[in-house]
């Protein structure tokens, strides 16, 4: 069944990796420029939503299976809390910054902020995609 326009499908397939790349850029440079974990994660999630809207959820699930996305979301939440406890084991308080820092203005300039941004970003992106899958395929 092919009721979607060819232009939209082709454009989506060409544009999809660049949307993902932009989301990853926003996440990884969240502490240097506007953006951050939530915003970049939403962009990643919207890329998967776009793929699901254009190609159909079944075809989108061949590349991004729902169980894989849900697992990523759960693991992201667990890693967030484990990073907090790691600070406690290193002798600081919960969720405090314990990693060494690089030069200010480069990507590794903040220790824990980058890792927290990464976990939040992947958690939000996959979580939004999971919500979209479940909501679209829900039949009353």
């Amino acid at each position, binding site marked *: 069944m092919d009721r979607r326009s060819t232009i939209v499908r082709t454009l989506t397939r060409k544009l999809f990796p660049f949307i993902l790349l932009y989301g990853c850029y926003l996440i990884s440079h969240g*502490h240097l420029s506007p953006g951050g974990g939530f915003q970049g994660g939403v962009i990643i999630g919207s890329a998967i939503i776009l793929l699901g809207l254009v190609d159909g959820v079944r075809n989108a699930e061949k590349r991004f299976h729902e169980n894989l996305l849900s697992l990523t979301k759960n693991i992201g939440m667990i890693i967030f809390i484990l990073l907090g406890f790691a600070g406690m084991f290193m002798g600081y308080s919960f969720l405090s910054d314990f990693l060494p820092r690089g030069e200010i203005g480069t990507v590794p*300039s903040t220790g824990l902020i980058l890792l927290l941004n990464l976990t*939040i970003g992947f958690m939000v992106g996959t979580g939004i995609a999971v919500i979209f899958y479940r909501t679209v395929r829900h039949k009353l």
Partner: protein
Amino acid sequence: MKRILIVVVLIVLGYFILNAVQLDYGRPRSGISEYYVANGVAETGALNLVTAIYLNYRVYDTLGEATVFFASALGVYMLLRKLKKGEPDG
């Protein structure tokens, strides 16, 4: 009668809104914002001060946000059922 009532309600609402707008919100009460602007980059290493605040100074708040999002996604995942094989997708 109805129009007079509407006018009276609008006047009362406007009076309250006027009072609310004229409150003095411009005074810095604690001076913590000046502290963040002065010391945020040196203490956290993040050039983006918004990120410095929500992932370093106020990271418990972010943990709560992430938990709320996780719980909502988990709720949707649990409540809405999966499509059976052969059923057409939306």
